[in-house]
């Protein structure tokens, strides 16, 4: 009689939950990430995405990677004020980009293929760029000023997209608020930072797999048309939703959001050799870490969590010798650990009830 053969026989230890997870220490995890392509300190890296992307951006800069800073901090501006005005967070001053559709629209706008609708929001006589409402905390004096600033910003976005070798994009969530007539996706709900919600003008949208996947493919095509050699490193933000507009528990909404994003990112990475997936979400946000990388609100990622994630990244991408030789220019804007997250403002609406 022939011995039974299992396809699992002889697989490496990390393929099994017991040896790959149960018996592992979250801070010392090995083998979770294997790079698909190398990122060298010479590569020009652009960063964009949801709140957690700020941590990635900062850590890359601190480790001497060549992170593009197209809109540098004005001389003299303190760290706190720099972040308040949206400087030093990402490669350009676009604020948090929570949705793939937002990234697509930003790229299309930068390359002159699209224009947002109803993007100037007002609050108490001041005017805000609805596509990045947090970067001017006090708003601007006129709608014309918003247009002027946006035009200048788009010039920098174009430079970022054209010149980057590697785009690191962290997708945040699936829930968005949309201008119904035009399909313009906003990073925050109207009426949160500025503007006002009007159910005749705005609608809620919870993107599904197909929409997000399709949006990313369109974004990739556009990006490649202007920057053929660009590679993309995708991550999913492990920070749960602050609030949901879905008629369900926020935990269910978070699980849906992250699951869909994770599935899209995984398929993109499987299908394209120039797209890699970096599992920061798995390390921080799954049972494996036993919640140890979240602070007491079970939402914010602790510094140890960030360091553990980045150690995993640098174990694959760091070339210590090259980094040492490089005269790393670390901006003074990196000393603050705080991340800027408009999303958290939603919490205040919950507290009023």
């Amino acid at each position: 009689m022939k011995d039974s053969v299992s396809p699992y026989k002889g697989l490496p230890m990390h393929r099994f939950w017991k040896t790959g997870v149960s018996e592992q220490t979250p801070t010392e995890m090995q083998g979770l990430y294997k790079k698909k392509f190398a990122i060298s300190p010479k590569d020009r890296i652009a960063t964009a995405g949801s709140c957690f992307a700020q941590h990635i951006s900062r850590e890359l800069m601190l480790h001497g990677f060549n992170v593009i800073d197209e809109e540098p901090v004005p001389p003299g501006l303190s760290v706190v004020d720099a972040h308040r005005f949206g400087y030093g967070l990402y490669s350009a001053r676009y604020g948090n980009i929570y949705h793939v559709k937002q990234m697509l629209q930003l790229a299309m706008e930068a390359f002159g293929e699209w224009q947002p609708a109803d993007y100037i929001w007002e609050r108490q006589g001041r005017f805000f760029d609805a596509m990045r409402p947090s970067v001017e905390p006090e708003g601007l004096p006129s709608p014309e000023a918003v247009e002027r600033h946006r035009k200048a910003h788009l010039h920098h976005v174009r430079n970022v997209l054209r010149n980057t070798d590697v785009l690191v994009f962290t997708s945040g969530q699936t829930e968005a608020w949309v201008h119904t007539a035009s399909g313009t996706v906003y990073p925050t709900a109207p009426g949160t930072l500025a503007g006002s919600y009007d159910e005749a003008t705005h609608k809620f949208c919870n993107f599904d797999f197909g929409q997000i996947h399709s949006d990313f493919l369109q974004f990739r095509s556009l990006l490649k048309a202007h920057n053929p050699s660009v590679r993309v490193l995708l991550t999913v933000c492990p920070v749960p939703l602050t609030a949901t507009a879905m008629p369900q528990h926020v935990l269910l909404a978070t699980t849906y959001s992250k699951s869909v994003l994770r599935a899209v990112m995984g398929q993109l990475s499987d299908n394209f050799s120039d797209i890699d997936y970096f599992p920061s979400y798995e390390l921080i946000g799954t049972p494996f870490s036993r919640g140890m990388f979240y602070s007491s609100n079970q939402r914010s990622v602790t510094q140890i969590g960030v360091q553990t994630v980045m150690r995993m990244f640098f174990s694959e991408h760091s070339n210590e010798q090259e980094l040492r030789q490089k005269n790393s220019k670390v901006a003074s804007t990196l000393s603050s650990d705080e991340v800027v997250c408009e999303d958290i403002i939603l919490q205040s609406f919950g507290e009023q009830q």
Partner: protein
Amino acid sequence: MKLCFVGNSHLGAIYRAWKLVRKEYPSINIDLFIERSTGVNPLKIISGSEEGEHITRLEQILVIKDDPIDVDVYDYFFVFALGLSIVPVMHLYKHCRADGHAQSEGTRLVSNECFHAAAMGALMGSKAISLARAVREHSAKPIYVVAQARPSEYVLDPSEGTVSSYASAVAMRDDSSLNSTYVEAAQAVCGPLGATLIDQPEETLNGSLFTHGRFGVADPRDCGEGSSYSIGDWWHMNDRYGLASLSHALKHLPSMEGLK
């Protein structure tokens, strides 16, 4: 009345002026502490007990004397220049233009609020404010922050280089607005420390951004090799300025009546 004057090379003109007029102020005793431009010792505060006395001292920041500054023995503190000047605001203007400024190629557009915050941040980071803060932490005595003179009007003479932003500001008619930003920011950083800003004497000003050339060490009539004009020292002022600035500063003392 004991006054403590602390500053950098810009205190030189005051020092020379004081030597000329000290006899006119018999009730005033001024100790001057001047930072060396090549010094390396950082500012340190010594606070604690020594031989049974409670003392608080500012260890000299690169000064010409060896003794530390004992903050307890002075009635008034004057902090001169040490980075409190319009220079960082002009540096900011060189790179960034606020909404209210004329726009220029090669500069980045920022909001008025951001420009003002950056100007404040630059001045907040000056050694003058660090020193004033250190004094305030150890003394309730009055502190005056005496701003560095604006550059000599001859800063407009070079057609290019690092000072080109001054000519640009004048050409774009942004000079008045920049001066307002500077003065507001300087007052804003002094205020929380309970320190009083003393700007340069009105009669020494040429417009918003400059000091009359006659008060500067640079003189276009002397442009020989190594002269202040030829090396582009638009920043330091002469004895005439020192006298005007000293007189202006002392007028701020509440008890000046009858001292002279």
